[in-house]
């Protein structure tokens, strides 16, 4: 059984393609949709909820068809039996917390004592017991967020959709809430689809991440897979901090390959070979900024990919420091912690050596 199946969904707004033939399947747990604003992730979420009607494709929840343009099936949102947490919470301002949470249960004509029991337990779950008679305007942002969650959880849906639910909270609260949210969803044992533009949030909260751009799914995989083996230059630049340069594969040697990078004065970099790598193929080289070593004096023989450059500037970020190193016509950013020997060197300029570990490089073949 799959909790959610999306097949060939497309949606146009006038000339803009919001969703371009999107297909994926998802069985259980928490899945995140990650992408910049306008990438189509919210449109996809709203199509799943039935709030948007796609131009083509089909959507099934728990193996039941909800939307199928070809068959003319369109289950209205009120019959889809899902939860939905909106970005702005969408709490009804004229109802108390209790009535907000009880709304869906009342519509389902549940007996009063059952409604009361379920509302109280949903509020307990999110830690808001005792606030039943408050109005949304009397709650803080974080509390409103919890009420919105409780409102969906009270209906005990199999699937809950969350549309950037934490984006209106301040940074500190956001970090707390995402851990709590993950625990809570696990505890209730439902599946969740989580939309966000914050990669750290997506990685923390979910079992699988889908990266979207321009209405297309670029990569679908576990968080570490997305981070370590980006399948698309956009994925590499969007998740994590990295420097991208153009290259061309010179030769493949076993599990390694040699890539020529003209921007780095034509240096040849050794890296792990991607699948179907072949000599002469153009590619993008992704260098993760946190996995590069720095030195003033050079590196011992046998170190991977030693290059020489000039440090142009250095930005202290608190705990971490970014070093900008000009190599050939390209600037390589290297992020180091405070134990890095380079930190103690005064001034910005000067000759610098870098060693890029072969595992710190991802080679993405041109499509």
């Amino acid at each position, binding site marked *: 059984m799959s909790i959610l199946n999306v097949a060939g969904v497309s949606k146009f707004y006038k000339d803009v393609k919001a969703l371009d033939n999107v297909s994926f399947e998802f069985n259980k747990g928490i899945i995140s949709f990650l992408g910049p604003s306008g990438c189509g992730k919210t449109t996809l979420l709203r199509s799943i*909820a*039935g*709030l948007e009607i796609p131009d083509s494709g089909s959507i099934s929840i728990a193996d039941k068809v909800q939307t199928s343009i070809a068959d003319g099936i369109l289950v*209205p*949102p*009120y*019959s*889809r039996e*899902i*939860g*939905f947490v*909106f*970005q*702005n919470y*969408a*709490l*009804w*301002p*004229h*109802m108390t917390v209790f009535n907000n949470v009880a*709304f*869906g249960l009342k*519509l*389902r004509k549940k007996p009063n004592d059952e409604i009361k029991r379920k509302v109280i337990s949903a509020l307990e779950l999110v830690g808001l017991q005792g606030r039943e008679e408050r109005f949304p305007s009397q709650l803080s942002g974080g509390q409103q967020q919890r009420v*919105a969650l409780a*409102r*969906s959880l009270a*209906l005990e849906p199999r699937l809950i*959709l969350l549309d950037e639910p934490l984006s209106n909270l301040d940074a500190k609260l956001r970090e707390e809430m995402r851990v709590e949210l993950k625990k809570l969803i696990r505890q209730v044992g439902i599946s969740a689809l989580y939309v966000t533009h914050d990669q750290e949030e997506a990685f923390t909260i979910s079992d699988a991440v889908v990266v979207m751009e321009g209405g297309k799914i670029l990569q679908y995989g576990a968080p570490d897979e997305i981070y370590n083996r980006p399948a698309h230059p956009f994925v590499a630049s969007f998740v994590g901090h990295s420097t991208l340069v153009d290259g061309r594969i010179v030769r493949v040697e076993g599990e390694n390959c040699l890539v020529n990078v003209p921007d780095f004065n034509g240096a040849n970099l050794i890296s792990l070979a991607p699948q179907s790598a072949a000599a002469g193929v153009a590619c993008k080289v992704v260098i993760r900024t946190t996995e590069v070593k720095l030195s003033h004096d050079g590196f011992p023989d046998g170190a991977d990919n030693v290059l020489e450059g000039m440090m142009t500037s250095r930005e202290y970020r608190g705990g971490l420091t970014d070093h900008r190193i000009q190599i050939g016509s390209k600037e390589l950013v290297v992020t180091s912690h405070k134990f890095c020997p380079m930190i103690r060197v005064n001034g910005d300029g000067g000759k610098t050596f870098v060693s890029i570990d072969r595992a710190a490089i991802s080679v993405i073949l041109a499509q």
Partner: protein
Amino acid sequence: MPLLGSAIAGAAIITPVLIVIWRSFTTGRLGFNVGLNIANYARVFGDKDIISMLGNSVVYAGGSALLGTGVGAMLAWIVARTNTPGKTLVELLPLYPILMPPIMKNIAWILLLAPRSGILNGMMQQFFGIETPIFNAFSMTGMIWVFGLACVPLGYLFLLPVFLSFDPSLEESAYIAGSKPVNTMLKITFPLALPAFLSAFVLNFLRGLRSFETPVLQGTPANIKVFVSRVYDSMALEFNTGLATAYSVVLVALSVITLYFYVRATRFSERYATITGKGYRVKVIDIGPWKYLTFFMVFIYFLAGIAIPFIVLIVVSMIPYFDYDTFMKFPTNAVLTNYYTVMRHPSFVTGFYNSLILSVTIALVTVMAGIVMAFTIYRTRASGTRIFEFIGTLPLAFPPLVLSVGLVIIFLGTPLYNSLWALGIGLFVAYFPYAFRNASGSIVNIHKELDEAAWVHGARWRHVFFKITLPILKPSVGGALFYIFIEAIRNVDVAVLLTAPGKEYGPVTLFEYFRVGQWAEAAAGGVVYLIVLIAAVSVAKFAFKMKFSL
């Protein structure tokens, strides 16, 4: 369902409009088709008075709008930006005149300014020995004076928020650039308020074009014709529907042009957008001893706008009959016979009763229909609903008198003619845009996620409408209900052509009393109305804790 409701309301609105246009292109008696022709227009444009009528309309509407908006702007500046004493009182004084129905003001000012019998002219003669009357209510100046005073509150309400939410740094940077306070006021403050001034001016101009009471009561006796009074004459005196509709179409064309300028002016003022929603602390200017003068100015407007007319009405309603000498003997000759007469007059009693019942009903129905239509447009998935946006706003371009011309033509020969239904439909059509625009504005402001949250949690449209939309709209619904009630209960221009013996409408009855010279009775009836209005305002204010901003 919401779609059906909107379709019915839309049909009720569009029919009289189409009828007026169609009818203007045909001659012959109603019910006989003689084909389309432009004979009516030939007569309208062949009318040798057309040029003077056009001139009169523009001078009257423009003059009143200029006087009203100018005074209103000045009052707004005094209230918002000067240290005039008695702030809370001064803020409210310019608004009280809204309470008085327009026809009451006309009656009161005619009593004051009539050339022979007018109280002020009588005083001039008695105390200064001036024989020739100085004031003349039946003149263009008299008309502009009375209607201009009625235009002040709108100018005040448009400009007050501009002066109140003015970003002080705009003026401060002028000071730093070396500009003195007076120069800053002239070069920075006033130019920035200009767009709002223009909006208010054009809206008041439109109200002038549509206004009925002043041209008919004060213009017609002096043979100063404007389009509205010409439409009324050809309908009420000649009963020539073709001619009336042709004049109407010209009037509508003028209104549409004005509305176009209004939209332009509003857009212009949005571009200036000095109001950012940020709460600025308004800088009050210390104007020294001048502050007593500004207080006096606000008070003068209060006197002219409502206090004097109100006192005159009360006195006239309590003297045996109206002439200057009897008036001056008050209070030694105070009687209540006029009230006694008026309350026993069947036409007043039924008219009063009808106007109460109809205003309440129409307020409820109109506001509800406006919400349903706005909900259909903005909150349902039905396609093609945008047409309702146009239909719902359409009556704004039609002076109320013209709408009732259309309704007379439709209902003639049907059982609805001379019934309260016709009156009710007329009031509904005339006030629908207010209800609709109010509801649209509020519904658009309700975040769509609130509806969607209800949908995904199991609500259908009726749940969304009754459990989410209506409860959230409650405050603005209250305001709209009250506004339409107040407007409807004092309406003359829609009702005047749709009343019949036994089916009177209160304000129209007063209008008729006045036209046939029963001035004291008209005054007594007017005072009764004022008492009801003041009671309604007090009830609304204290029982529903309603806040008023018209």
